[in-house]
């Protein structure tokens, strides 16, 4: 059932039973055409109704009403720009600032602070108060990740509701009452859950900051670039905060079909993998002395091609064991499919091994790879058969994309399983146990250093784009495979071709029906479900 409402003269049809703010949010016009400033209301938390900033005028109702808790009714006529509304907002803003420390110059939130923004937009430009401001604690550690500045807090209680309603851990409370109220954790029970850092995102002011980001970078220097978290297969949407070609933070980007407005702490911290010191910085080839040494891409390709050619000549495509990466993009993996086809091997002959870890009912998925679902959707098989071929000696060369096959989940560091191999060719982003025994190593780009798509655990295809440019030589797995195909002069790889992820992405749909109409340029910033998936 829908009802018709009029807001500032514009007519809207909205779902019955919604409150005004919910209805405006559903329409996508809240703070995006219809300005109803608010603090305590958050689209994914229960209604609090305490900040009183979202007051609007509803025709036929004598008092101003708070839009967050006023249900829409058919024929409702709302004014958000009237003089009464303007005055009411001004009043709330003035009161919120009476005790605020106004320490914006040293506040991390400055630049993305709703108190700053709304004071500028809806407040008065000077304070009438001559009274001393409330003095409270400036640095309270609420837990291992979050610091509270009690003076800056406007007591919207979003953080309190978040802990109760989202992770369900309820660590935070309002202690004391009146203007002595402060946010606090229970003694001996710090704010410590898998989602704790979200409270800093939803804090409209600089009261809650993450220990990780605070004092690192002024936010106005950051470009907030859309991306997808690669911490697990949930595919939470993020903004990567980038300055000076460096990622300083991830913050969740709202996508109601995936992560709503949240991200787990582990995923948030996974931005560090991009600039990590353990990145593989250049192609390497193992020399006669048994040591890996830096090499040019051409040399590395030549060595890899020679190893592969020797294996194929000895035992055909069977002699090449291939591990497909659950971290690579769908486009990279399509390139792998083509490479395998040129070798005469079916895609299912390549295996996908996915690292695993803790999961929950909220966002955390067991598979700790961003494109595990995509790799399977592209037809790659399980890793066990591939490992068996390696162990048995049937395979002479291992071509591993983004895999630490020696990781605890697989070979548990048992190097002897690889003893019969003539060569290990590795395409990966980070150093690993496998890298230490590989013969040729190619540095791969991180998912947020390239253009492409990732398919999350629910089968939703989402776009990634380069948010930073690696400060060293690194390539997409797809591009390295293209070059390797050329070096091997495989059928279909005769003509040197540029790596064009747009074009590769377009052909996903041609080769795989599930991708029909879905490519990097059509999925937008919120993604699209694979055909046949409800995500």
């Amino acid at each position, binding site marked *: 059932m829908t009802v018709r409402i009029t807001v500032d003269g514009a007519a809207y049809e909205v779902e019955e039973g919604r409150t005004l703010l919910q209805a405006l949010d559903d329409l996508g016009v809240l703070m995006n055409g219809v300005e109803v400033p608010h603090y305590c209301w958050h689209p994914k938390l229960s209604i609090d109704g305490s900040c*009183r900033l979202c007051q609007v005028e509803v025709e036929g109702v004598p008092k101003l009403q708070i839009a967050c808790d006023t249900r829409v009714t058919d024929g409702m006529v709302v004014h958000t720009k009237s003089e009464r509304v303007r005055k009411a907002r001004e009043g*709330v803003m003035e009161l919120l600032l009476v005790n605020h420390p106004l320490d914006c110059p040293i506040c991390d939130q400055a630049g993305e602070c709703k108190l700053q923004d709304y004071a500028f937009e809806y407040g008065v430009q000077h304070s009438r108060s001559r009274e001393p401001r409330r003095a409270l604690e400036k640095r309270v550690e609420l837990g291992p990740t979050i610091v509270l500045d009690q003076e800056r807090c406007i007591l919207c209680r979003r953080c309190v509701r978040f802990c109760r309603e989202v992770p369900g851990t309820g660590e935070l409370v309002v202690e004391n*009452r*009146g203007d*002595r109220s402060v946010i606090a954790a229970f003694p001996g029970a710090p704010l410590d859950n898998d989602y704790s850092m979200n409270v800093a995102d939803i804090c409209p002011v600089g009261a809650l900051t993450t220990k990780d980001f605070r004092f690192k970078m002024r936010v106005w220097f950051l470009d907030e670039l859309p991306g997808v978290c690669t911490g697990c297969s949930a595919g939470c949407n993020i903004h990567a905060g980038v300055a000076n070609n460096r990622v300083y933070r991830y913050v969740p980007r709202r996508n109601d079909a995936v992560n709503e407005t949240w991200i787990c702490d582990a995923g948030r911290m996974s931005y560090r993998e991009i600039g990590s010191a353990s990145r593989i910085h250049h192609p390497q080839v193992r020399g006669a002395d048994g040591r890996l040494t830096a090499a040019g891409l051409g040399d590395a390709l030549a060595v890899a091609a020679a190893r592969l050619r020797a294996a194929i000549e000895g035992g055909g495509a069977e002699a090449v064991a291939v591990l497909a990466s659950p971290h690579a993009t769908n486009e990279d993996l399509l390139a792998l499919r083509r490479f395998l086809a040129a070798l005469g091997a079916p895609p299912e002959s390549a295996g996908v091994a996915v690292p695993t870890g803790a999961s929950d009912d909220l966002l955390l998925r067991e598979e700790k790879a961003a494109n595990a679902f995509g790799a399977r959707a592209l037809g790659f098989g399980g890793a066990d058969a591939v490992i068996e071929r390696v162990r048995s000696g049937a395979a002479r060369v291992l071509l591993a994309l983004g895999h630490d096959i020696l990781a605890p989940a697989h070979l548990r560091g048992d190097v002897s399983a690889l003893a019969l191999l003539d060569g290990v060719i590795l395409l990966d982003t980070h150093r690993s146990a496998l890298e230490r025994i590989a013969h040729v190593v190619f540095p791969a780009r991180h998912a947020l250093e390239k253009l492409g798509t990732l398919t999350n655990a629910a089968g939703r295809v989402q776009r990634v784009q380069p948010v930073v440019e690696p400060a060293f030589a690194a390539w997409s797995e797809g591009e390295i495979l293209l070059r390797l195909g050329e070096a091997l002069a495989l059928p279909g790889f005769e003509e040197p071709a540029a790596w064009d992820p747009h074009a590769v992405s377009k052909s996903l749909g041609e080769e795989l029906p599930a991708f029909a109409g879905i490519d990097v340029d059509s999925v937008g910033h919120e993604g699209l479900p694979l055909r046949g998936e409800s995500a």
Partner: protein
Amino acid sequence: MGLKVPHTTNYLTEHFGDDGFVSLKGYEAQGGYEAARKALTRMQPEKLIELVKDSGLQGRGGAGFPTGLKWSFMPKDEDRPRFLVCNADESEPGSFKDRILLERGPHQLIEGILIAAWAVGAEKTFLYIRGEYSEPARVMQQAIAEAGESGYLGQGAMGTNFSHEVVLVRGGGAYICGEETGLLESLEGKKGQPRKKPPYPAEFGAFGMPTTVNNVETFCHVPHIVRRGAEWFRGIGTEKSPGTTIFGVSGHVVRPGLYELPLGTSLEQIVFGHAGGVPGGREIKGVIPGGMSMPILPAAELDVPMANESLRERQTMLGTGGIMVMDDTTCMVRVGCVIAHFFRDESCGQCTQCREGTGWMEKILNRIERGAGEEGDLEILLDVSAKMEGATICAFADAAAWPIQGLLRHFRDDFEMHLRHHRCPFHEGFRL
């Protein structure tokens, strides 16, 4: 020893001088529980609600909401358990009437509760008593036990198939727990913070169930209305405000105390005729008519009849009938400081205007009293109080704003003298 009652008595307090009246036997001797018997055995709940509506009884907890109407809000034909709550959190400064009703007439209250429970179909009443009221709590607990043993409460009250239980709950000691939804939160074991409305308690009350919350005195009127009829009740008091109420008179009067009088009795009659006027031959300066949250009246307006309709014309309200008399030695800025301090201290802190406004007002008032007031302070006070009015989850912010507005309306000279002389022009004996 009987209670010495210099007070004027009427039907509520008639027997309060008799110690025996506290006991079930004493209460029964005065016709106690006959009204409940009549209601439960001979009156349909709808008829009872009609009777209370016809009587014109208004809630005595401060807001003066029509009691019968409130009862009629309880949803019909629902399986959910229904509750009554008796608000005995009496915490309005200047009010002490419920205490005497609890201590001296516990069975009158239980009878009123029982009748109301029958009317709204409630299975249980939570009697929420202010934490500091230990003696009233003791008396009530004993009376509840007696009423249970004698078959008034519990399974099959008075031989009917109606059952009702009264559960006594001690409050934690916050003013805001007297606000009905703040009370419900506290009752549920949570922090006493008013709920946003709707949903109203009749729909979503104690533990989420349909609930009616009434003040102690409101319940106490009910047996008398049932016994003697709506017409009798309407014959007392004014046309719009029938019945008596218990005025609590405190401050600069010769005989402070409780006076049960018909609504509409003039303030002058109460202060001079009953409470004996101001001692020491001094003059009255101002009177707060209904508990601290109600705006003050100047001496010139003591002719006002003490009923909501007439008090509203003077921009104040009956509130809880707590009358506070101040003589001409009183500094109205200090009065403002005391009031503002109380409301700052008691604000629950949820809503911006209340949390920040109460503190700001107190700071300004204290500064004026110290002699550090500046031009523009009074305008800011009025403006802040206006911003607090009608804009928050509950009426606490209004209760904090109105008395300051009242002081500035009638005693602006006091404030301006402070500003002009940069000190308090009143005697030095008083310290905040």
